[in-house]
């Protein structure tokens, strides 16, 4: 297919589908991705918007076994994750609005993508997030309180990444994709790949969004991982909006199709279908751990809220578009599926809601009680070894503040 044909292909997709009112400005991404309806033959799906289990078809067949092996308990774990991370996220949003946090990047709408990917990771795997992966953090066992510090301004992350194999949040878009690739190259160099030992073989999952796919680092990471056959799974959450810029400003062909050009498979999965995201992620991670190289997963989803608490999505997208995606809500979908299959009853769902409230209260309390860092610590941990300039400035700083203390004592 020539470049012109590719472009023409994309343009032809933009016809029909969702038609915005003229005053809405840019063409909504639903037009460029209009063919990614629930009937899209290339999108892996297992549960429809109402929770009905879809028939096995050509696209989801390679992953069907994984879903079929999932137990009622697995479904309950995933449902609990979905509800709790949404509640934690909502609490983060509320805390920002109440002045407790300076900023909050919400994951609202992307719970299924993150929980599916997060639950597919094994303990020895490593995750490299952007800054919105609160759901992945939750699945890795990172206390949600840990995520608040950087948004409250008391640190730049601060947790020990190696406790849960969950790297610090990365703000500069795409930087972490290369860190993930290098870490995966290290796994391969250590021989912790392809041994057949499920407790030893490890993989890495790197997270970014649709906007991140435009970055040089994203593309360099794909090149490096491909050449090195690194056990790295690239997980793109296409929430369709890079702040105010829609998909059509980021790419002409969808990211999952780009993977083939780098020399490894790309998979498009319904990012609001937790069974599908789990199955696709597990399959890709299993392949990576066994030495079959990288996979790019594009989880097609939607960011229901703002990019962060600092922007106003009403300036760049229509409420009608948001309404369409409300119908695809992952929690509603999972609950419908579980009810229809008898995986859980009302008592279970109520208990999860109650637990969500408890966790939200815990997060709120932890946020409000989070101490400001002691001032001299600003100079600490900048270097691992003796650094005369930093040490001298620390001494000057302490002497300067001690002067104020003496004045206060005299008063």
């Amino acid at each position, binding site marked *: 297919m020539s470049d012109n044909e590719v472009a023409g292909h994309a343009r032809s997709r933009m016809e029909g589908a969702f038609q915005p009112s003229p005053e809405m400005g840019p063409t909504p991404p639903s037009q460029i991705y209009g063919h990614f309806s629930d009937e899209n033959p290339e999108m892996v799906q297992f549960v429809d918007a109402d929770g009905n289990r879809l028939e096995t078809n050509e696209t989801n067949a390679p992953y069907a076994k994984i879903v079929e092996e999932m137990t009622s308990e697995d479904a309950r774990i995933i449902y609990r994750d979905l509800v709790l991370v949404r509640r934690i996220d909502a609490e983060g949003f509320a805390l920002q609005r109440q002045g407790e946090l300076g900023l909050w990047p919400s994951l609202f709408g992307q719970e299924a993508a993150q929980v599916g990917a997060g639950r597919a990771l094994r303990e020895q795997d490593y995750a490299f997030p952007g800054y919105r992966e609160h759901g992945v953090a939750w699945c890795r066992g990172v206390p949600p309180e840990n995520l608040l510090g950087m948004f409250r301004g008391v640190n730049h992350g*601060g947790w020990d990444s190696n406790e849960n194999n969950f790297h*610090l949040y990365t703000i500069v878009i795409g930087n972490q994709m290369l860190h993930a*690739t*290098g870490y995966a190259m290290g796994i391969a160099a250590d021989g912790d790949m392809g041994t057949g030992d499920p407790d030893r073989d490890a993989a890495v999952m790197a997270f970014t969004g649709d906007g991140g796919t435009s970055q040089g680092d994203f593309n*360099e990471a794909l090149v490096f991982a491909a050449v090195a056959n690194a056990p790295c799974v690239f997980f793109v959450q296409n929430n369709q909006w890079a702040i105010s810029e829609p998909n059509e400003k980021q790419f002409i062909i969808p990211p999952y199709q780009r993977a083939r050009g780098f020399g490894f498979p790309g998979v498009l999965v319904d990012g609001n279908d937790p069974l599908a995201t789990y199955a696709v992620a597990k399959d890709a991670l299993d392949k990576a751990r066994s030495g079959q190289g990288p996979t790019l997963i594009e989880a097609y989803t939607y960011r229901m809220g703002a990019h962060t608490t600092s922007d106003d999505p009403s300036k760049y997208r229509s409420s009608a578009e948001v309404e369409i995606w409300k119908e695809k809500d992952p929690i509603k979908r999972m609950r419908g599926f579980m009810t229809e299959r008898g995986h859980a009853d009302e008592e279970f769902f109520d208990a999860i809601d109650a637990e969500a409230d408890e966790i939200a209260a815990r997060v709120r309390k932890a946020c409000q009680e989070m101490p400001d860092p002691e001032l001299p610590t600003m100079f600490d941990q900048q270097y*691992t*070894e003796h650094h005369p300039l930093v040490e001298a400035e620390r001494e000057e700083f302490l002497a300067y503040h001690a002067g104020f203390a003496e004045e206060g004592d005299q008063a």
Partner: protein
Amino acid sequence: MSGTRLSLAKGLNAGLRRAMDKDPKVVLMGQDVGKLGGVFRITEGLQKDFGDHRVMDTPLAESGIVGSAIGLALRGYRPVVEIQFDGFVYPAFDQIVSQVAKMHARSLGHLKLPMVIRIPCGGGIGAVEHHSESNEAYFAHTAGLRVVTCSNAADGYWMIQQAIESDDPVIFFEPKRRYHERGETGIDEEGAPELGLYDARVVREGTDATLLCYGPMVKTCRQAAEAAAEEGRNLEVIDLRTLSPLDLPTIMESVKKTRRAVIVHEAQTFVGLGAEIAARIQEECFYHLEAPVLRVGGYNIPYPPSRFEEEFLPTLDRVLDAVDRSLAH
């Protein structure tokens, strides 16, 4: 220092080899570092002896090289990255200043990035554009990095090992026009290096003025001092070696003694390292100075075509002219 005489290039090669021998986690990576041994042959023979898993030819992408080296460091490796030329480091600049420099601090000390980024630097080899720059100030300005530069074979041998042993990330500048100059290295000795990685060296003791220099300018300044000596002027020459942190005690001790300072570097003087050093001297040695602190550097233009570079780069005569101006006060 006694021992085998080697070129700076061979000294660096021997230092890398010894570091790789001592620690299996030391890995080299970059464009052409494998079979070719790097465009300056600094890594020559190392892939043959240590294997392509320890000396990795990478795709031609500087951000990718540095970014993936970060991941390897997080996995427990000690990557030594080669950037082919000074002017090619800019695609990796984001990874270096946004990630390499900050990882330890933002993890509150949980994570370390013990990596070395080697950059052949400076001009004087008749190269095309982007091959002759002195961009050390960008990195010295970035908190979280350490920046050092060698000027001779012995320092090349020892400093590269010290940089690799450091748990902090180190930007390691190598003056490419000195790569083939030979000197004694001390590599036959079991002992430790004379100086720490973050120590300046008094290359030549003197009493009339201090020449502060580093990298390729050390030789130029030593020659200037020898020429000045014939005219009865006794110049002290200090090879800074460490650019961040600066070894301020050694600098101040010398300037308080000679009361005059001339800073010499290839980089443009505007907001260059000389500006920082001059400011520090002014703060600490104000009452000792007999003359303003002077700078000799590249002119404040982008590095010119090579037919101009002999005029652009500080020469022995330009250094002596600055010394004359200092002594005229």
